[in-house]
């Protein structure tokens, strides 16, 4: 039997009353486990398998296939309830960026949710996502175009953000940088930062999860 601290990142209904849960664990990387009977009304696992909360789990690793979750205990939430829509979208992004077999998911998601909790309200989502991208190693320097290195104004192009010098890569206006750092309430800055993040995700062939789902 193994045990670890974990964060739930995905939950898929399996058979009639079970879940297959994907978890980022602190010491065992990303794992997928069968939570047998967890969808039953009286299951001891039912109220515990929730995202955005620190979980303590015990499981039996599978000899060939998936392991089986034996116990889960939900501890404190990693961010206030008012930030849960942002937190869920950040968790969905983390599930894409850190596939099975990766080790860093737990620390990255924990840091991203912490950033989201501390950031100013309108930029909480982009700030959390930015931390996640940084931890995943796909974020570029925040003060210049990540292709040609030029520092100048951002241009919104059809495909996302475009650098006015090289025409392809995104550049980084100061306003967007402030939003990525969670330090602005300015709607335009948040919009620019979101476009920038969408470009970064698109470069990885991923779709940025929408806020509110």
């Amino acid at each position, binding site marked *: 039997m193994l045990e670890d601290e974990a964060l739930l990142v995905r939950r*898929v209904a399996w058979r009639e009353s079970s879940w297959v849960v994907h978890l980022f664990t602190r010491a065992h990387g990303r794992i997928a486990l069968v939570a047998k009977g967890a969808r039953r009304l009286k299951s001891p696992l039912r109220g515990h398998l929730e995202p955005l909360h620190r979980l303590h789990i015990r499981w039996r690793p599978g000899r060939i296939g998936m392991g089986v979750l034996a116990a889960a205990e939900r501890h404190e939430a990693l961010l206030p309830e008012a930030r849960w829509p942002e937190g869920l979208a950040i968790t969905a992004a983390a599930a894409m960026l850190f596939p099975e077999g990766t080790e860093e998911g737990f620390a990255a998601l924990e840091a991203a949710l912490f950033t989201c909790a501390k950031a100013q309200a309108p930029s909480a989502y982009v700030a959390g996502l930015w931390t996640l991208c940084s931890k995943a190693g796909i974020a570029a320097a925040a003060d210049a175009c990540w292709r040609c290195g030029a520092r100048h104004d951002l241009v919104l192009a059809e495909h996302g953000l475009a650098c006015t010098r090289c025409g392809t890569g995104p550049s980084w206006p100061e306003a967007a940088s402030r939003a990525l750092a969670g330090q602005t309430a300015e709607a335009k800055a948040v919009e620019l930062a979101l476009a920038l993040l969408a470009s970064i995700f698109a470069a990885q062939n991923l779709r940025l999860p*929408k806020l*509110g*789902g």
Partner: protein
Amino acid sequence: MIPGSPKALARAVEAFATLPGIGPKSALRLALAILERGEEGARALAQAITGLVEEVRFCRRCGGFSEGELCAICTNPHRDAALVCVVEQPVDVLVMERAQAFSGTYHVLHGRLDPLGGVDASKLRLAELDARVARGVRELILATSATVDGEATAHFLARRYAPSGVRITRLARGVPEGGELEYLDEFTLRRALSERVAWTSDETAAS
């Protein structure tokens, strides 16, 4: 299937076994019970099932179960149309109505935000709710589930409709009627404590 059993019986067992909570053994029991009832009983059951899918649809306004364009609640002149209770599923309307304590109307989202499962706001019935709020709603009661997804959906809706000036409330959570503290889970207890209400003295209440 048991070897040598008639094809029609095998088909019926297979069909029943696709329903939730019905395994192959229960499916066989159901099929045999129908055989025992005879042709008339089977026909009545078949008619009830066909009627279910042919006659039950969703209300154009609230999204709840309905037999016509609009449901019985939306067309009832005694219901307060400016008081709207937002729920996740049509069955939640039936559950709320069982309490016989609500005289407003409903709005069914047909889901809740679940980014981890790929459900975003575009998959919820929000355009219809936008239109209702624009036409004039006094209060929105957010009756989504007490889960992280349900809570996130409630926050999302509150943010969306707060600028329109509508009063937004949330279903209270805490100790259930007849519930003993000993059997309560720690989450419910914590919530009950943090959202405790001021005691109204008997005399104040009576006056």
